[in-house]
């Protein structure tokens, strides 16, 4: 009984605690935003782990898909529910913002998944280094395309997402952003966990070990690659949408190759093919980034150095490709997470 529901219980308590603390403003705005970025980073790193870890490809343009999700979600939200200089009066009654918000974020995810096709189609014939280049190119193409769309701000960026959040809070006063980030983080981790342990997940693993052999064993590699790339970039889009609403401002420059590198660092820090590793690494990395913030530009020397040292001495990351339950077998008695 305990084993079955312990994860649900812990998550409910944790969520309740965060909402309680945020509602009565025991947590400062800064601390709350660090917590929210932690959630977004968990989504991003675990979704990139799907491609880089489980499937064994080398994608380094994850921030591009995040950008698509962020822009689609923000434009939809601002267009529908907020008064804005660019889009004019809200199209729908702002009272509906609360109910439509998850739909908007998911729409961003779907758009990002479609953008993932940009990488999925070339991946049929291309592997390894060449595919890495294609993902970088996709990242640049997406950023450059958005920079050239002057109707949504171009390289100046897009604002007005705070209006949507205010509309939600007018309807019912609750700290909505932490709640949605928390729920979406759990949703994304759950989806990835289900996907990896499904039949498709076995196929993904087979591709990572040997693509030709997998194909002979009747794994439809093209189909699995398409689905995995779409799922991974779709979840990144969800993360991007949340990122945009937390910041209240997006510009294409913040989704460049540096952001992709940041996500990659988290994946390799945690260990390829380990979901709990990605989550731990995302939490650890977010805290590390905040601690290093006073160092300003030195931060970007320390982080690559950490990764270089990691590659020299423990290239498999913190967790290797094992999950938490495999490292501490006794924990298995207390929880079950599927």
């Amino acid at each position, binding site marked *: 009984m305990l084993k079955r529901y312990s994860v649900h219980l812990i998550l409910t308590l944790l969520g309740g605690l965060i909402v309680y603390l945020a509602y009565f403003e025991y947590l400062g705005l800064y601390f709350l935003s660090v917590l929210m970025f932690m959630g977004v980073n968990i989504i991003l790193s675990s979704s990139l782990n799907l491609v880089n870890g489980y499937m064994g490809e080398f994608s380094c343009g994850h921030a591009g898909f995040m950008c698509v999700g962020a822009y689609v979600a923000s434009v939809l939200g601002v267009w529908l529910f907020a008064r804005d200089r660019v889009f004019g009066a809200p199209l729908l009654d702002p009272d509906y913002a609360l109910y439509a918000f998850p739909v908007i974020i998911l729409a961003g995810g779907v758009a990002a998944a479609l953008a993932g096709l940009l990488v999925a189609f070339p991946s049929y014939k291309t592997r390894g280094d060449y595919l890495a280049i294609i993902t970088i190119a996709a990242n*640049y193409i997406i950023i450059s395309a958005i920079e050239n769309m002057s109707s949504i701000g171009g390289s100046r960026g897009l604002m007005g997402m705070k209006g949507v959040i205010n509309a939600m809070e007018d309807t019912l006063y609750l700290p909505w952003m932490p709640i949605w980030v928390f729920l979406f983080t759990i949703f994304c981790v759950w989806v990835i966990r289900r996907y990896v342990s499904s039949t498709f997940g076995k196929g993904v693993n087979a591709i990572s070990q040997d693509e030709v052999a997998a194909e002979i064993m009747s794994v439809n590699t093209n189909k699995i690659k398409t689905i995995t790339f779409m799922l991974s970039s779709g979840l990144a889009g969800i993360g991007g949408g949340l990122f945009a609403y937390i910041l209240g401002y997006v510009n294409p420059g913040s989704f460049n190759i540096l952001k992709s590198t940041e996500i990659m660092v988290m994946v390799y820090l945690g260990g390829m093919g380990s979901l709990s590793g990605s989550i731990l690494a995302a939490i650890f990395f977010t805290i590390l980034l905040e601690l290093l913030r006073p160092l300003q*530009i030195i931060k970007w020397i320390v982080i690559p150095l950490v990764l270089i040292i990691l590659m020299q001495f423990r290239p498999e990351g913190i967790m290797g490709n094992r999950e938490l339950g495999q490292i501490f077998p006794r924990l298995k008695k207390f929880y079950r997470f599927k």
Partner: protein
Amino acid sequence: MLELIIQNVINALQWGSFYALIALGYTLVYGVLTLINFAHGDVFMVGAYIAFFVATFFLVSLGIPGWLVLALCVPLTMILTSMVGVTLERIAYRPLRKKGAHRLYVVITALMCGLILQHANLAIFGASRKAFPPLIQEHVYNVGGVSFTNLKIAVIVTAILVFLILHWIVTRTRVGMAMRAISYDKFAVPLMGIPLDQIIVITFVLGSGFAGLAGLLFAMSYPVLEPYMGALIGWKAFIAAVVGGIGDIRGAFLGGFLLGGIEILVVAFFPSTLRDLIAFTVLLVILTFKPTGFFGVAKTTKI
């Protein structure tokens, strides 16, 4: 109309020369080690900075005339930049190679080395842009409506010379033969008495040295230096190398000029902000239909 075409061809050749020079470095290292040296674009940036410091040192503190400074700058920049490249190889790549680490880890290390070079530069010299001092008098020639400068011609001629030299080294000398042998079979080569590490160091010296030369030429043509200048040009040069078929010197050369041509064409007919978009889209299309590039050979994988 004809003048316009010739004018654009000259511009494309000059712009493509930079890509070709950097792409040669990528392709040399890839051909020998099958390693994407992602730090190469930043080595180019470091080369431009080294050229800047060498030039200002000689020009300001010693007061030597410009043409002599240039004559000193070329070998000094190439030597110092190749030392940066070799240092990277010694500190970051060689320990991993000795351990027999997975190629992916080496690629990530390379990417991180590039980031460190960029931001160390930013931290040490600040974000202010540096203006490169003019070394030689720039003459503008005008032949039948087509205008070009002596610098433009020098850049194009240098790129072609470097290509010929490298092609000669790889195909005609013993070192080049050893390079080709390593790319063919890394395990049998030491058994034949070929010093693996030395050849790899020579490869890095050649690649980084020519990146330094490209940095010097770039700084002379577009005399504004900033720490991030290497990143985008490096990525694009890499794309040029891949489009030509990475690992093949002719491919890198051709790919560089092709990419330069495409970009100049785009700027001639569309708004210049679309340049990156179209260049990267062309790459995506080429790689989708011909994944190994123009000169690359598809490898068969065995189970």
